[in-house]
């Protein structure tokens, strides 16, 4: 449980999600990474380049500084990690279960929030956009691949999400181990 909760902090080192765009003029591909606290690209200029491409179809600029979630999500993660470690030390089964449930709800909310952002980027288009394709929306898939005009967009979870999942799985593991062995040495998990 303690390790699982501590593991949570590792998601500051890995992106949660990866959206990549393929087009003939971009043989090297364009990759964007969504982290718990930032949005990055292959290099420091990627976001600017994506924004330049997006402005032709009237998409809003992706500006990480204006995405509030990126500001407060890190605190939630740190808090959950600290709480998880405390729960682990206390070693109460119910507390562990509570932690798992809260984490799962947070995870689902997080993905739903991400979906809302993607929906907003894809649908909320500038009516003055130079390129308007009737009926066309540009929402990247949450999970999977999709053609958006000349770009083939792919969106999949990245290492951070796997770490987060592992963290929750370990907590679930701790819950069950504790169920079998009683109160004595759950800290090992």
């Amino acid at each position, binding site marked *: 449980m303690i390790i699982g909760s501590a593991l949570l902090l590792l998601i500051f080192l890995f992106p949660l999600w990866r959206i990549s765009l393929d087009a003939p003029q971009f043989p090297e591909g364009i990759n964007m990474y969504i982290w718990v606290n930032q949005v990055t690209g292959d290099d*420091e*200029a990627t976001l*600017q*380049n994506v924004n*330049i491409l997006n402005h*032709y179809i009237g998409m809003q600029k992706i500006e990480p500084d204006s995405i509030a979630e990126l500001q407060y999500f890190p605190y939630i993660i740190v808090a959950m990690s600290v709480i998880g470690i405390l729960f682990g030390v206390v070693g109460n089964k119910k507390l562990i279960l509570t932690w798992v449930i809260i984490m799962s709800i947070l995870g689902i909310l997080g993905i739903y929030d991400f979906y809302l952002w993607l929906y907003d980027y894809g649908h909320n288009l500038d009516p003055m956009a*130079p*390129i308007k394709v009737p009926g066309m929306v540009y929402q990247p898939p949450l999970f999977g691949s999709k053609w958006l005009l000349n770009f083939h967009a792919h969106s999949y979870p990245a290492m951070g999400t796997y770490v987060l999942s592992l963290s929750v799985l370990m907590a679930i593991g701790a819950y069950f181990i504790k169920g079998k062995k009683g109160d004595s040495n759950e800290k090992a998990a």
Partner: protein
Amino acid sequence: MRTKLFILLAIVVSLGMMGCESKEEGGGGNKGMIGSNAAEKVYVAPGEHDEFYAFMSGGFSGQLSVYGLPSGRLFKVIPVFSVDGEKGYGFNEETKPMLETSHGFIPWDDSHHPELSQTDGVPDGRFIFINGNNTPRIAKIDLKSFETTEIIEIPNSAGNHSSPFTTQNSEYVVAGTRFSIPITETDVSIKDYKEKFQGSLTFVSVSDDEHGDMAIDFQILVPGYDYDLAHAGKGPSHGWMFFTTYNTEQAHTMKEVYASQNDKDFIAAVNWKKAQEYLKAGKFREMPANYLNNEYSEKTHTAVSKRETSVRVLIPEECPGLIYYLPTPKSPHGVDVDPTGEYIVGNGKLSADLTVHSYTKMMKAIENKSFEKEIDGIPVLKYDEVVAGVVEKPGLGPLHTEFDDKGFAYTTFFISSEVVKWKVGTWEIVDRIPSYYSVGHLMIPGGDSRKPWGKYLVSLNKITKDRYLPTGPELAHSAQLYDISGDKMELILDFPTIGEPHYAQAIKADVIKDNSLKYYKLDENEHAHVTKSEAETRVERNGNKVHVYMTTIRSHFAPDWIEGIKVGDEVYFHVTNLEQDWDVPHGFAIKGARTAELLIMPGQTETLKWEPTQVGVVPIYCTDFCSALHQEMQGYVRVHPANANVELSWGLGEDDE
């Protein structure tokens, strides 16, 4: 008599009656023997990369071209000594200083010999140097950006032909005077050539860092001959530089005859390590000079000219052991040192044979003082004591030799229009193949280094005649690619070149391609008039000078309309390309500009000076097809009468109006 015969032959060739020794080997008439798999050997499929970069001099175009081998595809023409409207080189305010000289701004030169920088005698892909022949200069091109980043003028020189050959670690690139002149330059009678004219051999140091800054370290004053070509020693002969001479007759007129009389001219062997000792010991003279050193900074995106006022000069008479002459038959053109550093080939262009000197023998002759005579303090070594061997009757008019990695040498013959392969050490001829026509230099990738990539050979030909579709009186020069991986040379490709490809160099693409710059970082742009965001764009007036701080990004200029400019104003458009992506330059052109366009790389700032002469509204537009809305990337500048009383105004988009 022999001399006259050769001249006659040369005239015959130039009249166009090809002396076709080649016919017997030509197979298919004069089209060349093409193997059935030649196409396969040069085919680089669409999207695939070539194996080698080839850098070919532009000759009288003054530029340097970049080709791929084996495909022969042209990638880029790098402007060096000549203005280039396409890139705004020499037209925009930033690059104008690159072409400044002690004579003022010069928009053209004649560039002959590209030379890659070396480490341990092997091309290292950091820089390539090239000489300006007419107004003596050496340029340095950075192989990260493929842009000319420095040009240094050579004082006390005329006809900078034996240049810019490099030493083993690019400690120096050199510059020898093809035309001797009175030094320092004064107006003496041309008839006083023998008494008053001198040559100079200049050693330009190259700093051992990412900038490779050039500076003149020293010059050696030498007798008034024509110093033709050069090559450095390598391996055991590292520390020596060899220069060919002709016109040791010291003729000042009708040189084609009078400068072709002596049976032997010289190869000058300069011990530059000795020169460094003399410099350290203070045995130099400080001579007044006047020359410019122009450097382009990739931080400020701007070139600056610096004037230098003196050079350190060494006089052979005062510096024993500094320089020796090796007698070499008949007006040797190229001097080429084999990969081991032992053999020094003198390509006596009017000689029937090819002379090869031995470095070991030369050192022994120096030790034994086997001198024939002394000229102005320069000992002339005895010919028999230095010659290693002779390639007998290889062809007519030998010019240049390069080497492969299997112990063979390849020499070009201008008059008999062929390349001859011979074995270093035994001096036997093993193969010969015609070139179409009249080959000058040849190039094997790394072929003048310690480690040639002996797979291809390129002959650089002066005459093409019937080889391509005719284009009026002026025809392309050509490069011909030979496969030299087998025993027999095989012609596999023939392609036209820009200007006159005097010499070329090539290097494995892998050495360079991963270092190639994709764009300049805007954060690091230190241009004096940079505009780093659209919020900072503005127009400022200072008297009749108007500075426009403009930006470009797909697909608009900011600002894209300007009013308040008057006839008689001096308008400077400082345009910063805000893009930070590969291959997204923007162009900038304005009607009536008497300069050229700007072609601004991502992250770069360039300045166009515009002096409107007519009242009206003139458009500006992007010239480089940047995006789907490139055609919309345009704007207007309103020009008022000279006496109008108007304020400047500008903007972008409806909100600004």
